[in-house]
C-alpha cells in the first residue's frame, strides 16, 4: 500500500482560476508571451471549445479491455468525475452574461477565442480586445469559487 493516498481529487476549478489570472495579466502585452505561458492560453482555448460545443466529456481512457488497472490512464481516470465541469460551466455562463450581455453565445465565444488565438500567435490585441480580455478573464476568475 502506498504511503500517501493515491486518490487524486479534481482540481480543475483551481487550474482555470489560475489560468484566468495569468491570461488577464498577459493581455497587457500579447506580443511577448513566453512559451510556457502559452499553456494557460491554450488551456483556456480548449475550455472555450468545450463550452462552445457543450462537449465536457473529458476523460482519459483505460484501455480496450476491462483490465489494465495499473495503467497510467486508469489511475489518471480517478481524478475525473462526471461533474467536474459544472462549477466551471456555471462560472462561464455568469461571466458571459456579465461581459457579453445579450450577445448570442456563438458570437461571444468567437470574440474570446479570437483573442486567445491572437495571444497564442504573439499577435497584438487592439485596445478594445485588451479591455474585453481583461474584463472577461478577471470576471471568470472571480466567478470560480474554490
Amino acid at each position, binding site marked *: 500500500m502506498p504511503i500517501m493516498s493515491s486518490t*487524486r*481529487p479534481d*482540481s*480543475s476549478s*483551481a*487550474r*482555470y*482560476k*489560475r489560468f484566468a489570472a495569468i491570461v488577464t495579466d498577459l493581455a497587457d502585452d500579447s506580443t511577448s508571451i*513566453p*512559451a*510556457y*505561458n*502559452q*499553456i*494557460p492560453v*491554450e*488551456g483556456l*482555448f*480548449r*475550455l472555450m*471549445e*468545450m463550452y*462552445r*460545443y*457543450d*462537449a465536457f*466529456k*473529458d*476523460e*482519459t*481512457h*483505460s*484501455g*480496450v*479491455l*476491462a*483490465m*489494465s488497472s*495499473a*495503467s*497510467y*490512464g486508469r489511475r*489518471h481516470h480517478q*481524478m*475525473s468525475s*462526471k461533474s*467536474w465541469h459544472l462549477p466551471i460551466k456555471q462560472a462561464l455562463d455568469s461571466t458571459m452574461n456579465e461581459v457579453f450581455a445579450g450577445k448570442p453565445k456563438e458570437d461571444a465565444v*468567437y470574440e474570446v*477565442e*479570437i483573442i486567445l*488565438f491572437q495571444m497564442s500567435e504573439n499577435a497584438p490585441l487592439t485596445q478594445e480586445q485588451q479591455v474585453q480580455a481583461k474584463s472577461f478573464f478577471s470576471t471568470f476568475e472571480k466567478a470560480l469559487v*474554490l
Partner: protein
Amino acid sequence: MRPVDFLKNECENLLSVLDQTLRYDYGLEGSREFYEECGQRLEYIQASLELVDPTSTHIVRELALNLEFLSELVCRIERSSLGEYSWPFVEEFKEISKALCTEKRVLKDRVVTRVPNVHVIAEGGLHTYSIYSDANKQLSKRRIFIIEFPRTLKHYVLFHTILGHEMGHAIYNIPLIQNELDEIFIENFVKASPVFKDQPTVVQWLYSEAAPQEVKARLNHLKTEHSIDHDDFFFAHADYDAWLQEFLCDFIGLLMFGPSFLGAVCHLLYSNDPLGRQVNEEHPLTGIRANTLLLAAESLGYTEWKFDQSVQPAVDAFWKDVYEKQETDPWFKVISKEAVKITVDKLQAFLANFPKTLYQAPDPENINHLVHQILDRCPPVGYKFTSEGPQYRQVDFRDIIFAGWIAQSQPGSTIKFSDINRLCEHGIMQQVSIKKMLENPKKPEDNKKAA
C-alpha cells in the same frame, strides 16, 4: 521546508530526469518535440510556484498534482525505447493518428490547427493496448498522445489493429469531434436501441429473467458481496456513458481497419472473458459488442467481398471463426441491423473527412497476391518479378494485415501465427521503401551519376 519549497525542489529533480529522455532513441522523429512540450509544462509549474501565495492551499495542491502527472508521464517515456515495439506498424499508424487527432478550431473565416505530439511506448502484457491522450483540462500547449503497446506482443501486427478502437476514444476528447460523434451516435444508435436508449431500460434488461446464467451469477455476486442491486447498478458499479462510448469506438476501429479489427477483437476480448458474458464496469458485455460489430461488418458489405478461388476458402474460414463468437440467444439482440447500418454509414461519412482514416474495400487481386506471398513465407509487399523486370505498386498497410488474417485461416496451412505476424511486419516495413521509391522515381541522370 514548506510544501512550496518541496515542490520547487521536485521540479529540479524532474528537470534532470527530463534531460535524460533526450539520450534515447524513441522513434524516427526522435524525442525533441516531446522534450520541449514537457519542458514548457515544467517551466509553467516552476514559474507558478515562484508566484503563488504559499498559504493558498488549493493552488499549491493543484500545482502538486500537475507536477505528479508530469513526472509520471516523463518517467514512462524515459523507460521506453524504439526496440520494444513494432516500429513499421507504428510509423503507418502515426500518420493516421496525426491526421485524426489534429485539433481543428473553426474561427469563422479561418481554421486553425494544432498538431499533437504522438509518442509510442511498450509495456505490460496482453491488456496494455491503449492510447493515452491529454485531457482538455490538463496542462498542455501541444497535446500529447501516447500509443501503448503490449511489450509481449511486439511483433503481432495483426492484433495491433485493436488500436483503431483506442483511436476512437482519443478523438472523442476533441470537443468539435465529440459534438459531431455524439450527434451521430445518440440519434441513430442509442435512441434506436430498445435496450440502450436509457439507463433504466439497460438495467431492466440486465436483471431480466431471460438474462444468461453467467450474467445472473455476476449480478448476484454484486448484490451479496458489494450490496449493489438494480437500483444503483449504474451508480455504484458500471458507467452507462462509458458503455456507450465503447460501442462507438468499436465502430470507429472497424471502419479504420476493416475485417482485421474484428479478427483482433475476437482474439483479444475473449482472452480474459472466454464466454464474452462478463458484466464489467466500463465495457458492455463482449458478446454484445461482437454481435453489434458483426451487424456493422455485414452492413458495410465486408462479408460479401469475393476473392480469387485459391483464397476464398481461407476468407470463408476467417468469417466462420468470427461468426463463432456470435451470440444467438435473443437476449443479446440489442439493436436492429438497420439502425447499425445508418449509424456506421454516417460515421463513415464523417471519418471520410480525415485523410487515410477509412479502410477501403481491397482489390481482390492485390489481396490474392499478398496472401500467396505469406503462404510462400515471403513478406507480403507490392512487388512482383515479371519477364519485363520488377514491378512495384502501392499497398495499404491494412491490406497487408488483412492478408495476414486470411493466411492464418488458410485450411491446411502449417505456417505459425507468430510467423505470419513477423512476415506482415516485414512486409509493412518493405512497403514503406517501395512507397518512397514510387513517390520519388529514380531519374536516368541519377544512374549516370552513380556510374
